[in-house]
C-alpha cells in the first residue's frame, strides 16, 4: 500500500503526518538509547549511562504527545478503515516503544552497579545481540513509516536470531557462574541485560505485527516461532 496523503480535508493529512513524524522520532530515540546503553556498558562510561537515563524522559514525553494527538484525531476526524487502523496501531506502538526505552534505561542503570575491573567474555556476545535488536527496532519502525508489510514479516522472522543469542548467552553465563563463583554478581547483571535485549526483540516483533495489521487489515498468521528461551520465562514476562 502506498503512502497516501490525499484526504479531501488537508488538515487531516497534516495530523497524520505529524503523528508519523512523532513516532519516527520516538523510535529513533529508543534505538539510540539502546546503542548508547550498550556502549556505556562495554566502556564502563558512567556519564553516557546517566545520559541514557535522563533522555528516557524525552521518550516518555513523546509517548504522551502521540497519545494526545491520536485521541484528538479520533475524536475530531472520525478516521475509518486504514486511517482508523493506523490510529489504533499508533497508540499501541508508542507504548511498546516506551517499554523499549525503559529496557535501555534499565541496562544503563546496571553500568554503575558493575565492577568494571573484571572482564567477562559474554560482553562481546551481548554487543552482537544488541546490534541485531537495534536493527529490528529500526526496521520495525521503518516498516511503519513506509507501510511495508513484507519488511514487517521479515522483522518477526529475524527475531529468532535474538532468541538464539539469548539462549547461547544464558548457557555461557550459567557455565561462567558455576566455574567462577566470585563473578556471580556480574554475571547475574549481564543475564538481566540479555533478558532485556531479548524482550526488546519481542517488542520489535509486536510493532511489526501491528504494522502488518495497519497495512493489510489482517492479523499476521502465527508463524514458526523458534524455541522458547531456555529459562522458560519469556511468556510469563509479557507486558
Amino acid at each position, binding site marked *: 500500500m502506498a503512502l*497516501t496523503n*490525499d*484526504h*479531501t*480535508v488537508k488538515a*487531516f493529512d497534516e495530523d497524520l503526518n505529524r503523528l508519523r513524524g512523532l513516532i519516527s522520532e520516538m523510535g529513533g530515540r529508543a534505538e539510540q538509547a539502546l546503542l548508547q546503553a550498550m556502549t556505556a556498558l562495554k566502556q564502563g562510561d558512567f556519564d553516557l549511562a546517566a545520559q541514557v537515563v535522563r533522555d528516557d524522559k524525552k521518550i516518555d514525553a513523546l509517548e504522551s504527545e502521540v497519545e494526545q494527538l491520536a485521541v484528538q484525531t479520533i475524536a475530531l*476526524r*472520525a*478516521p*475509518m*478503515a*486504514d*486511517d*482508523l*487502523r493506523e490510529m489504533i496501531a499508533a497508540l499501541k506502538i508508542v507504548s511498546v516503544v516506551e517499554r523499549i526505552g525503559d529496557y535501555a534505561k534499565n541496562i544503563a542503570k546496571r553500568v554503575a552497579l558493575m565492577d568494571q575491573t573484571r572482564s567477562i567474555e559474554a560482553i562481546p556476545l551481548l554487543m552482537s545481540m544488541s546490534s541485531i535488536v537495534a536493527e529490528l527496532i529500526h526496521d520495525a519502525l521503518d516498516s511503519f513509516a513506509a507501510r511495508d508489510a513484507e519488511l514487517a514479516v521479515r522483522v518477526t522472522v529475524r527475531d529468532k536470531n535474538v532468541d538464539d543469542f539469548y539462549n547461547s548467552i544464558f548457557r555461557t553465563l550459567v557455565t561462567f557462574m558455576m566455574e567462577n563463583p566470585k563473578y556471580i554478581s556480574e554475571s547475574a547483571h549481564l543475564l538481566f541485560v540479555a533478558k532485556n535485549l531479548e524482550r526488546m526483540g519481542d517488542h520489535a516483533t509486536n510493532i511489526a505485527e501491528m504494522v502488518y495489521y495497519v497495512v493489510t*487489515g*489482517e492479523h499476521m498468521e502465527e508463524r514458526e516461532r523458534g524455541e522458547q528461551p531456555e529459562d522458560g520465562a519469556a511468556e510469563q514476562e509479557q507486558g
Partner: protein
Amino acid sequence: MTQDDLIIADPKMRAQGVNVFYGDKQAINDVSIDVGTDLVTAFIGPSGCGKSTFLRSLNRMNDTVASAKVTGRIELDGEDIYAPSMDVVQLRARVGMVFQKPNPFPKSIYDNVGYGPRIHGLAPSKADLDVIVERALVRAGLWDEVKDRLLESGTALSGGQQQRLCIARAIAVDPEVILMDEPCSALDPIATAKIEELIHELRGKYAIVIVTHNMQQAARVSQRTAFFHLGTLVEYGKTTDIFTNPKQERTKDYITGRYG
C-alpha cells in the same frame, strides 16, 4: 471472511441484475442485493451514485417519474414487484418509506397515523384504530410525548418528532419493509440519536434499508453496508468489515475521505 458469511438465508427482498434508466441515462447498472429482516442494510455513496434511485425502485416510487425505466428483477417474498399483477398501492403499504424531510399530513397527529390503516381497511372500528395508532406511536418512540395532544396538528411538532411521526405512519400499516432515505439529515444530533435507537428497536420486526450520507450513522445503525458509486454496487459486506477493512480501493477512498 468468505462470501458464504454474507448470504441472507431468507431474504425479504431480493434484487437481481437491476438497471434503472432515466430516459437515455443509466442511473443503476446491474445491481444485485438481498435484504433481510434481521439485518439493517445501509446504502452509502457520494451524491448521484444511484443509492436513492435504487432505494426508490424497491417500492416502485420511480413509477412516478415518467422517463424512469427499471429492468431486471426485484422480488418481495419471491414475488416480482414489477409484475403486471402487482397492486402498487398494496406494495407501498408492504414496503413503506420515510423521506429526508419529515412530511406529515396537515392533519392531527392521530389522523397522520390512522389514515393509512383506515384506507387499507385494517381498522374496522374506532376502537381498533385507537389501538393501531397507539401501538405505532409507541413503536416509533413518540407516544409519551404526544399522548395528551393527539388532536393537535402533526406539523406543530418539532422536526425530530415529525420524523418519528412519519415513521409511526409508515409502521401503522404493518409493513414488511421500511425504506429510509436520509431520515436524519434534517435533524439535530439528539433527534438523530432517537431515530437511530428506533431503527435498532425496529430491527427484526421489519426489513430496514437506510440511505445515508453520514457514514458514522451507517456504521452505527446497520449490520450490512452497500457502497454505491457511479450507479454500480462496488462493495457489499458486513458493516464492521466495510468500515475497518474494505476490500475495494474505491470504498476505502470514500469512507476515509479521500474521494475526489
